[in-house]
């Protein structure tokens, strides 16, 4: 049904590493020596001084036209190698890939920028390096300059630019690349927060135009904002493929399993241990373990706590974060009439989030126990629980857009007819202006 834009089939890439630690250029002498020795060796490839490293192993996936795919993984997991193969910078050792449509790749902002050239010259240079035709660049020139906000420095060599200006100009050129398939690596990791947001907005526009984007970033907020699906890379292997929330959850190494988490026998690094979490669980209103909830349902956070005898008042905090790390809520028992009894050593506590109104997505729960004044930390477990809010349920009939907001509010709507003789409402006269 949907058109295929990118297909990877069993892509693999190996590098040969010399044990002297040189991966690339050998000297001519070494090669001549090894050529001279070769007739004497039955199998030169068996030489023990080399080692084959698989940067990428048997990676397959399909991306449909108009899809925005996130590629996440730690450094050295093969993300960049994958992008380099798809951008044709390097070739796979085996496997094949197919790209339908013109492909543009931004593995770095400002590739080919030359410090001695002026802003104007660099726009043309960088644009043609990225694969734009001169006429295309000319047609978009004003747009690029306006986006970069560097009009008055167009004829200044970029070596005199501030870092911010340089990066803005570089991104502006890249952002105006109009190919059907776009590969983007980490370019958003530059510039100040405001400019990053502007870049992200531009990338959203690109994604919204129905173009195919493969997006690699360590910024999970950006990935979850832009992408619908994602691949998790680990040691050169595509470890998982799924919705962006699932993949980010797995990447962040947070708990993803359903059910009660035992905490009694962990090595507690945090806190004094005067209070200790024993277990934790996410449950529904019937007290059964559950992970997926619809809006309007009750999410019950339950946990067991062991208290040292004669402990003064203990304060409990539940922190909820979205899968990209955005804090959603910091709940403290201080803000309620609840008081933790201190006459038992072991207590089971639950906090019901009734009528939950969080947007669909994956959320993590952290638990803290501190003293009354928040100066001493008794115990703390980060991102120990995970629950998901899924589409549907009694409140909404439609699928909610993922990043249009955080909280689903249902105001009471009212209307009242305004009759023509009702002169109670008048536009205010502006004074002081002609």
């Amino acid at each position, binding site marked *: 049904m949907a058109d295929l834009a990118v297909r990877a089939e069993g892509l693999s890439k190996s590098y040969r590493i010399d044990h002297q630690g040189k991966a690339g*250029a050998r000297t001519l002498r070494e090669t001549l020596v090894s050529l001279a020795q070769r007739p004497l060796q039955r199998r030169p490839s068996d030489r023990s001084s080399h080692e084959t490293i698989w940067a990428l192993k048997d990676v397959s996936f399909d991306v449909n036209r108009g899809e925005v795919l996130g590629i996440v993984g730690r450094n050295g997991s093969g993300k960049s190698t994958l992008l380099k193969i798809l951008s044709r910078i390097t070739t796979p050792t085996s496997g094949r890939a197919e790209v339908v449509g013109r492909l543009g790749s931004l593995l770095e902002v400002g590739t080919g920028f030359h410090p*001695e050239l002026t802003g104007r010259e660099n726009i043309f240079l960088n644009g043609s390096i990225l694969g734009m035709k001169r006429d295309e660049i000319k047609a978009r020139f004003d747009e690029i300059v306006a986006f970069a906000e560097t009009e008055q420095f167009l004829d200044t060599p970029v070596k005199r630019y501030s870092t911010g200006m340089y990066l803005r100009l570089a991104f502006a050129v890249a952002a105006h690349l109009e190919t059907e398939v776009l590969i983007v690596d980490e370019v958003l990791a530059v510039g100040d927060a405001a400019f990053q947001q502007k870049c992200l907005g531009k990338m959203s526009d690109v994604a919204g135009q129905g173009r195919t984007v493969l997006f690699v970033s360590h910024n999970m907020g950006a990935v979850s904002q832009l992408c619908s699906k994602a691949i998790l890379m680990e040691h050169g292997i595509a470890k998982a493929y799924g919705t962006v929330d699932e993949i980010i959850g797995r990447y962040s190494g947070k708990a993803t399993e359903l059910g009660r988490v035992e905490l009694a026998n962990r090595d507690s690094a945090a806190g004094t241990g005067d209070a200790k979490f024993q277990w934790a669980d996410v449950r529904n209103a019937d007290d059964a373990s559950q992970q997926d909830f619809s809006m309007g349902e009750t999410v019950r956070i339950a946990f067991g706590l062991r208290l040292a005898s004669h402990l003064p008042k203990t304060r409990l905090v539940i922190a909820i974060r979205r899968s990209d790390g955005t804090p959603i809520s910091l709940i403290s028992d201080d803000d309620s009439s609840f008081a933790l009894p201190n006459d038992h050593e072991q207590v089971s506590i639950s906090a019901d989030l009734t009528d939950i109104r969080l947007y669909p997505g994956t959320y993590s729960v952290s638990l803290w126990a501190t003293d009354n004044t928040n100066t001493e930390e008794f115990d703390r477990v980060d991102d120990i629980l995970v629950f998901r809010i899924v589409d549907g349920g009694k409140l909404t009939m439609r699928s909610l857009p993922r990043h249009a907001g955080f909280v689903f509010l249902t105001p009471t709507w009212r209307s009242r007819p305004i009759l023509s003789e009702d002169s109670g409402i008048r536009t205010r006269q502006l004074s002081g202006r002609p």
Partner: protein
Amino acid sequence: MRAANTGSPPAPDRPLPRVVIGPRAGAAEWLEIWRYRDLLRTLAERDIRLRYRQTVLGVFWVILQPLASSIIFATIFGNLAKLPSDGVPYLPFVFAGLLPWNLFAGSTQRAGNSLVAHAGLVTKIYFPRAIIPLASVTGSLLDFLVAGMVMVALLLLTGIGVGWSILAVPALVLLILMLAVGTGLLFSGLSVYFRDFSYALPFLLQFWMYASPVVYASSLIPAKYHVLYAINPMVGVIEGFRWALVGGPFPAVALIESLAVSSVILLIGATVFKRIERSFADVI
């Protein structure tokens, strides 16, 4: 934000190009150079712009360099060593030899180092790799044009004048470019793997210059060795320039040899380059 923009993908009005990526090179990749001609032009332009930026004398250096070396050669080889110049005043004689030689040596030298110098591009962006050495060769043409005007001035000043034979110069330039592209592709590609080639190239060019009739007339070589001598493709080219500019015999045999050898070098350079091109990004 995203939801508001999600429209249907734009319908392609023509079939989209389909690129297959695999361990083996696909066919028709030389044709891609034509599709990337804008990049070739921009890179060549950049080379030229950068060469004399932030210099006071600017383009004057282009004139000064060949003129100064001609005067030095004229003094040393013409006046002191009294090398033969076939009856032509030594200065225009040696300038007519340096003109093609500098085009060849300059563009080969620049092309030979070009890939390593542009490692940042090679590892970050795809384009036909041959664009980089080709742009270096193209960028050297400006120097040649400026020096060519000095040549014309020199011909007029010394009373030799300009004849119709000057119209053969573009054809000879094409021959030089063929040779320079072949040598440049070979050396730029090999120096990605072995930097030794970047160091060897200046030496090679220096030897090559003295093996070519730049500072002396080829009449210095005994006639029976002339066919052997002209295997050096620059012999035919330089003799051709002398014939076109300052007069002399038309080097028919030497030019045929030059064309044949240049074609072979171009073929070798292009073949080797093509074979090793695909792993440039891994080893550079």
